[in-house]
């Protein structure tokens, strides 16, 4: 186990070193985003571009607005009555807050994995098939089964569950449940997957599996991950954004952010002085 992690880390280090933030390759582009919860400002003037088919991590002390910003990208904030979003966020060059946007389709395009594994109280198969069914992606039974299998394979869960697809997803272990949730999210073929502390409820082995999975997925998907673990951010992401009290303090190449941060606050956070 340890070995894999080390190998992966080395690999990622390599990628990080070569990574650059070319605007042409960005898939999410936020400009001057302000978010308020019932008048209380949670995000202040955030502008950032997220690179396509890369892993970007959001770090920062608790309550600094990471989740809030993540939820802006697939408009999960719409579900909170008191939340108001200002500014401009583009996904694939399209302003997602413009009136002609179909939120439902946007969320199929920008998937989300939550902090706590939240499988539906349905069978493993139905959990993965859920998104395809509601979006009517396929009417064909065998095609549906194929795509469920593919998603479970991508989520590195297939071998563990292939003999019990009809059993409830809630019966899996925490790590398996989280991979099931990832399989469920990627089954609808989103371009972007938002992950809010996906491994925070998991033990180290399950965490390693999830991290490995993130690396694999990043060839086809753009992944934005919120994490409290700087080691994790360093291991999995090419880019890192550091948030502090609703502000985007530092954003860039993960290696640079961790080795030579520009801002004193980033420095303090990384060295454990704030947080």
């Amino acid at each position: 186990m340890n070995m894999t992690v080390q190998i992966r880390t080395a690999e990622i280090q390599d990628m990080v070193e070569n990574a650059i933030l070319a605007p042409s390759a960005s898939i999410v582009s936020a400009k001057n985003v302000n978010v308020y919860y019932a008048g209380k400002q949670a995000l202040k003037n955030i502008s950032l571009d997220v690179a396509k088919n890369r892993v970007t991590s959001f770090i920062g002390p608790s309550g600094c607005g990471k989740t809030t910003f993540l939820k802006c990208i697939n408009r999960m904030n719409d579900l909170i009555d008191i939340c108001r979003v200002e500014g401009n966020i583009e996904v694939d060059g399209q302003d997602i807050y413009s009136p002609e946007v179909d939120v439902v389709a946007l969320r199929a395009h920008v998937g989300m994995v939550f902090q706590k594994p939240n499988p539906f109280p349905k069978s493993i198969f139905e959990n993965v098939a859920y998104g395809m069914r509601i979006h009517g992606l396929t009417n064909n039974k065998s095609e549906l089964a194929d795509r469920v299998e593919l998603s479970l394979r991508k989520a590195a869960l297939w071998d563990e569950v292939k003999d019990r697809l009809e059993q409830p997803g809630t019966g899996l272990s925490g790590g398996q449940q989280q991979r099931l949730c990832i399989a469920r999210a990627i089954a609808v073929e989103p371009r972007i997957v938002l992950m809010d502390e996906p491994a925070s409820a998991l033990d180290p082995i399950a965490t390693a599996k999830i991290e490995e999975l993130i690396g694999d997925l990043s060839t086809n998907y753009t992944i934005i991950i919120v994490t409290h673990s700087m080691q994790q951010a360093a291991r999995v992401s090419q880019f890192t954004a550091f948030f502090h009290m609703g502000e985007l303090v530092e954003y860039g190449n993960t290696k640079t952010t961790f080795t030579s941060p520009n801002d004193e606050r980033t420095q303090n956070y990384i060295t454990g002085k704030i947080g």
Partner: protein
Amino acid sequence: MTNSFVMRSSKSRKRHAAEMRFQWMGRIAIIIAIGFLVFMVGSIAMMGAGALKQTHIAFDVDLSHNEIDPAFPEKADYDAIIKASLRKAFPDITDRREKRELYRLVSAEASFSLKNFVVNNPAHIGQTHKLWFIASDDVDLFFKGNITIDEKGNAGRLNAQEVAWVRIFERNQNIETRFNTRFFTAGDSREPELAGILSSLTGTAFTLLITFLIAFPIGIFSAIFLEEFIPQSRWGDIIEVNITNLAAVPSIVFGILGLTIFLNTFGMPRSSPLVGGLVLALMTLPTIIIASRAALRSVSPSIREAALGVGATQIQTVFHHVVPLALPGMLTGAIVGMARALGETAPLLMIGMVAFIVDVPNSILAPATALPVQIFLWADSPERAFLEKTSAAIIVLLVFLVLMNLIAIILRSKHRQRF
């Protein structure tokens, strides 16, 4: 794939339409339920409003010495005097059938009220006076416009001739409607124009008094014991299961209990508010216990710890410190339970509180009926005129229900403010 989330496809339009339909299903369900409520209460209120007014008619009454002996005014035949006076008002009527129809215009009560008038005003004997009397229910319905004239010229049970007489009274301004005090001050009667709710209202008051006096102390004591002394014990659980199940027993079963245990075994007086109150108390008990336990639970444990810490016994702690704080909540539960008991009918039928009660009951042992049972009885009466009495009685019942619930709401909000 790019920009696939801009709303364009017919599929996504369909899904949004389905969403809207689904939301409207919820709205429509609520509108139907509330609409029914408004329709029901509204139409009953409209039917009942008429009962607040009562038709009176006036004619000259000859209180001559021939008929009334001033020494014994109460001995006179006042019925005959009324009839004679009516004949005088319509001298053309000679036919016996027509005369009978004429007498039917005034209520049977007219002779009593005339007697009262004369006995109280003996100076008027020997004079002729224009006096007002309660009209019969048929005249009342017709004059208030509850009944329209059919093609034969009849209005309900009034024939064309009687309608014409009413018109004559009307022309001479000898017929009018007044506020119906009788409805609130009289007991039940076979004659709709004379029937009132005072006897049943008093019966309800006595019954609920018994209910409260029995259910409230037993309810709170039992809640205190279960919540403060044996929480999470096996016995506590058994009693708790018992109480939750008791709360869902059909009310008529409590009536059967009252019939066999209180009436047949203990020989308590049938139809009495005592037995009615007992039965309703047993029925209300689970509500009060459940509410009181919730009230006790809402008292912060630190108060118990503080009292126990200064050396109070558990009983002192509970009764001196916890119960006073929980009392408003308990009282709220009791009022909610009593409001339910106020409208209960079925169990009272079982123990015979369904009698025809003219007199206002004067004790908890006297035969009585209750307001909801009175409603049931009137609803069953064939006379059309009871319709508006029934509706009016329902409105009175609902007003009391609203008042009780308001008290509960006010108590609850006061209680909340204190913490």
